[in-house]
């Protein structure tokens, strides 16, 4: 049976933990709102970019001609997995769920005898993957100094990725991140970044024939790096929102658990105090009777 003093110390310590988790939850909530707003603002650009690329790609297909960025990515042997995670922990399963998805993909590719390379964005993913796959790392992007994600950051990352693509370091690039479904649910997802595949269904009925200036190929060479930067930008934004959402949920849970623990400890504390009082009373009464 712990003494009264021990219980008191424990209650105090859990109380201060609860204060910290509560503060972290509120900070995450504020950051989440900001992240969501900036993701919202970037959406029109990303959507229009996708439209233009699919318009372009479908008309390039009509004209024939092979652009180096286009293709379906089948029959390729060199894969680059871009794993985007957070710089910080204490956000529930956020980081490990992305890493888990990436790991299963690595295992799948390896069983097909494909060559796999890894590029990580964010410290946490790197730490977790380092244990098993250190030899596969080719680069790491550190975001710890970025308070807000800007398009410039995304551009730098995409320039690096594209120059590696042009140098033939890999043939297919896939990116792993957490999709922001809602505050309480984030879905680890992945998609193919490069090469850009032509979507048949998107070249719909409004098959307008565009004039291109300069020609299709040159525009593609210009727009695809841009669209990749945009994709990376929106991935980073979704990730940032998911991270904060996930942290908020985790910290909310922690705060609630701390509350429950305090209630339980307080009952224990009261009970042992009452026991001590009763004990003293018995001693006094039996002392009085003895006289």
């Amino acid at each position, binding site marked *: 049976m712990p003494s009264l003093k021990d219980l008191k110390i424990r209650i105090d310590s859990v109380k201060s933990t609860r204060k910290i988790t509560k503060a972290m939850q509120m900070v995450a909530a504020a950051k989440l709102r900001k992240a969501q707003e*900036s993701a919202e*603002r*970037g959406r*029109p*650009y*990303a959507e*229009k*970019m996708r*439209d*233009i690329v699919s*318009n*372009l790609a479908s008309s390039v297909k009509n004209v024939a001609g092979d652009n180096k960025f286009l293709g379906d990515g089948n029959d390729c042997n060199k894969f680059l997995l871009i794993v985007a995670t957070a710089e910080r922990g204490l956000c529930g399963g956020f980081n490990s769920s992305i890493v888990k998805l990436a790991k299963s993909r690595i295992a799948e590719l390896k069983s097909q005898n494909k060559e796999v390379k890894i590029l990580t964005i964010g410290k946490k993913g790197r730490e977790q993957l380092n244990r098993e796959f250190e030899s596969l790392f080719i680069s790491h992007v550190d975001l710890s100094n970025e308070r807000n994600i*800007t*398009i410039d950051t*995304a551009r730098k990352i995409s320039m690096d990725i594209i120059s590696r693509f042009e140098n033939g370091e890999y043939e297919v690039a896939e990116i792993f991140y957490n999709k922001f479904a809602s505050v309480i649910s984030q879905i680890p997802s992945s998609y193919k970044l490069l090469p850009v595949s032509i979507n048949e269904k998107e070249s719909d009925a*409004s098959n*307008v*024939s*565009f*004039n*291109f*200036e*300069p020609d299709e190929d*040159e*525009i593609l060479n*210009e*727009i695809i790096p*841009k669209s990749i*930067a*945009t994709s990376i*930008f929106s991935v980073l934004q979704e990730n940032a929102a998911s991270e904060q959402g996930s942290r908020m949920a985790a910290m909310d849970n922690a705060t609630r658990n701390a509350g429950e623990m305090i209630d339980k400890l307080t009952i224990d504390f009261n009970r042992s105090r009452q026991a001590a009082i009763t004990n003293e009373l018995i001693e006094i009464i039996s002392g009085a009777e003895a006289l």
Partner: protein
Amino acid sequence: MTNKFELSIISAESKVFEGKVENILVPGMVGDFLVLSNHAPCISSIRPGFLEFSEGTSDKQRYFVSGGIIEVNNNMVSVLVDSAVSGDKVVKEDISNLISEVDDRLSSEDTVNKDDLGLRKNDLEEALKQA
């Protein structure tokens, strides 16, 4: 009344402009061109320079763009820009900074497309004169 069409200028981080305009002058990659309503569908890349459009009243609006893509389709004009600054706010320093950025990249040895960068520098210097 003259014909108007929808124009939206969007940068990666925000919507810069959205509304109905009468015409827009675009610094295209191959040369400047003017878009009026019922323009044939086209997609063109934009070099760094000034974008000018008027909403119908006499005064024109001017934006400095550092490059991008324009799509004209069915009287909907969308301009995707890398960055856009309203003409009144353009400071010559900003453009000079962009020029020195290009210079840095030109001087670094591993750059492959020196021609492109040189062209970009010319465009920027041209824009600096107009600012």
